[in-house]
């Protein structure tokens, strides 16, 4: 069944324009375009979502706080001929939390980008850093918003608050149950 062992893409989900993109999980896909569609199906069945990013997991380089303290930088040298380019920086800020987009740095290799992220992106505590070249990210386009995220908006029946079972059951138990009305 190796036919579906497609690359894994990390998915970043933005709930509101004024909020950062957060890591939602990952999907498998043969290319970034399908990764974006799969991400929509898996992570945006409900609002709110205004933007999605997908990045192949292999394009992300990570560094934990322990590795940083021990000076264990990941071995990811520059690709030959690769000029300095922008990298996105994601940081996991709390033990229960998930990675969030915290800024951008320039780098000629993932390692250099990580070094600059540690120095330049002021976030504390920073438990795990992730960097990826900006060119490796596929972002949903603003004009795709209605077709990608619109369908989640008009399905109120996906929300538990749509059903009034608690009050229905309360009424039934009050009227029919062991406590007769007026008692």
């Amino acid at each position, binding site marked *: *069944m*190796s*036919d*579906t*062992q*497609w*690359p*894994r893409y990390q998915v970043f989900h933005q709930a509101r324009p004024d909020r950062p993109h957060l890591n939602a*999980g*990952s*999907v*498998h*896909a*043969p*290319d*970034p*375009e*399908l990764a974006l569609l799969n991400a929509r*199906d*898996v*992570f945006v*069945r*409900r609002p709110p979502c205004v933007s999605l990013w997908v990045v*192949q997991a292999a394009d992300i380089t*990570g560094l*934990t706080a322990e590795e940083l303290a021990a000076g264990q930088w990941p071995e990811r040298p520059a690709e030959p001929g690769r000029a300095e380019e922008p990298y996105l920086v994601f940081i996991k800020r709390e*033990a*229960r939390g*998930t990675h969030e987009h915290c800024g951008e740095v320039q780098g000629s290799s993932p390692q250099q980008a990580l070094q600059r992220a540690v120095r330049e992106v002021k976030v504390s505590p920073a438990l*795990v850093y992730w960097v990826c070249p900006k060119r490796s990210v596929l972002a949903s386009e603003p004009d795709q918003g209605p077709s990608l995220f619109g369908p989640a908006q008009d*399905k109120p*029946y*996906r*929300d*538990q608050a*749509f*059903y*009034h*079972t608690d009050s*229905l*059951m309360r009424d*039934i*138990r009050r009227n*029919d*149950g062991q406590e007769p009305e007026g008692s």
Partner: protein
Amino acid sequence: MAEPKNAPAADPRLPAFEQRIGRGEKIEPGDWMPEEYRQQLIRMISQHAHSEVVGMLPEGAWITRAPSLRRKLVLLAKVQDEAGHGQYLYHAAETLGISREEMLEALLAGKAKYSSVFNYPTLNWADIGIIGWFVDGAAILNQTMLARCSYGPYSRAMIRISAEESFHHKQGKEQVILYARGTALQRRMVQEAVERWWWPTLMMFGPHDQASPNTPTLVRWGIKTKTNDELRQVFVNQTVPEIHALGLRLPDPELRFESSVGNWIHGPIDWDEFWRVVKGDGPCNAERLATRRAAHEQGQWVREALLAYSRRSGGAMAA
């Protein structure tokens, strides 16, 4: 990361690991963990993922026969959620070093376990309501507990899943309430559905604590925080009074309220039946697997087409 098997206690990193769990910290994918912790989590999360995937089948069969457009939209959305939940969970298991393909292969080969309750048939529409109330209600109790578990990716998947499942639970309960207060035929349908699903739902919580060998380890490492029997009791206490208030009967002549402990006590569970179904001999085991295999085979051309498109457009799979 491979640890010598059967020697986790000897590892000098174990005390620090257990202290982290004691402080309520989450263990994350890159962190050191005992091999048994990893294996237990892979076992639990993959079984859970398979349950979501196979769980689509008993209800999926009723989408085309929903009694109204509203019910059809709701059931479609619910089944689609289960597919998504399977994906969240396969993702969480993958962070432990197993591939999605290995898990799918184990499922299709009949080697993987999934919740035994999905091997029972859905005979009429009232079953859809009862599954939402009983089966999803039982699942939510388990998931709410697992949302507090010590492994970060599993815990986060459970938080998202629990929130979505409460829609599943309430849409089912709403249907049961309406049927219980409906026509004589509707009342009979829902009464029979209650009788069909009560015992399989109680079995969903798993064997009694004294027959559940994994539980102490799972509790010690913060994977589970309640035992099978504790969760089952919560479910029984929640459900019995509401079923009675609706004028429905549970198929258990020994069911009684024990006021000294404040619990509803159920009669003996037929564990022979449970093990028969778990081991593959339930009413629908063969049918469920055959449906999964057919879906996988019939989806082959879609995977090939996606791959061909990716190659042509220079995507990640381009040679």
